[in-house]
């Protein structure tokens, strides 16, 4: 196996970098817009973060989030941005898998697949 990076490796790294960067930026923009809406509506009320209550079930789950965003809720939009953020490293792993499959590296395709499945299972336990 080549120790030096092949041209394909470098190409893949560029793609991974772009995916990571655009994911973070997109997420940040969505969170920012959501934050502005949220502050606009709720800026005057008093926050209570001292006591822990489980998040309202409405915001847990993609469908719930999209409904909130459609209703113009800032918190929903922030949650959407957070979902994009969390999905970014997952997308990166998926692309790495594509890379290893194309290189015909069976062993590392398996490793990457295991990581991907782990991530998906962890997030899928979260109600869609």
């Amino acid at each position: 196996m080549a120790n030096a990076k092949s041209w394909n490796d470098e190409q893949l790294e560029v793609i991974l970098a772009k995916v990571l960067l655009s994911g973070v930026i997109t997420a940040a923009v969505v969170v920012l817009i959501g934050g502005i809406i949220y502050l606009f509506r709720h800026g005057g009320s008093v926050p209570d973060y001292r006591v822990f209550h489980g998040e309202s079930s409405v915001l847990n789950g993609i469908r719930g989030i999209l409904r909130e965003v459609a209703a113009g809720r800032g918190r929903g939009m922030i949650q959407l941005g957070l979902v994009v953020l969390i999905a970014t490293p997952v997308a990166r792993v998926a692309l790495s898998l594509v890379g290893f499959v194309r290189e015909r590296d069976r062993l590392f395709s398996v490793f990457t697949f295991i990581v991907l499945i782990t991530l998906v299972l962890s997030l899928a336990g979260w109600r869609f």
Partner: protein
Amino acid sequence: MSVFDFTALVWFGSVVAGFLGALTGLGGGVVIVPLLVLALHVNIHYAMGASLVSVIATSSGAAAAYLKEGFSNIRVAMFLEMATTWGAILGAFLVAKVSTPSIGVIFGVVLLVSAYLSSRPRKRGGTASQMGAVAQLLHLDGSFPDGAGMRHYNVRRVPLGFGMMFVAGTLSGLLGIGSGAFKVLAMDQAMGIPFKVSTTTSNFMIGVTAAASAGVYLRHGYIEPGLAMPVMLGVLIGSFVGTRVLVTAQTNRLRLIFSLVIVALGAEMVYNGLTGKL
């Protein structure tokens, strides 16, 4: 105070945390939780959720930058991520099982150890002279840009590194931090990987590790949007600026002060945890 004032305060604190975190290489996440819990009396679970989110953001951004430089070892990262992701899920589940004061104490200890680890002089050389058995099997060796050309390096003690990564992942999930210091420790000290490669590869792995625990965090409601929003945005901005600041005598003094602050925060977390104030 109002939500607006509170948010502005959190945002400002996050910018400073991100800036100093980038400057010292300790990351902003390590400071965010104590900051929110000790100074603003935020419940530790919400603080951890916000911190975890910021960790994903900064590490993904940093990883993008380092990938372009060609230092990260993606094979090592991919292999070790199996350990870190499983550890992260375990750690995230443990949050509900471990008492809050205990989490506070563990957090404080981790802060103290992180400050100690980052204060040690960077090792130049001392990398693996030979390939370890597992490393050879998996072709984990690599090369990185070094002056004129590419310098090749070996990797060793992969099973040990794997085990250490599992622990690092568990800490990440349990505390909502990146555990970068421990990941670098495992790669640099145990596996003999050159320091610059260790740090960049660690950054590459932190985001994936945190994403693994994020699922559990979301399910248990630890991630509160109103809090995660200013923390994420603030730490991103702070670390972006922090990485672009030239290292000068002033910054070295800042780093020293920050390390002392971390030690103080760590001690206070331990104290508060032990005396039941958390």
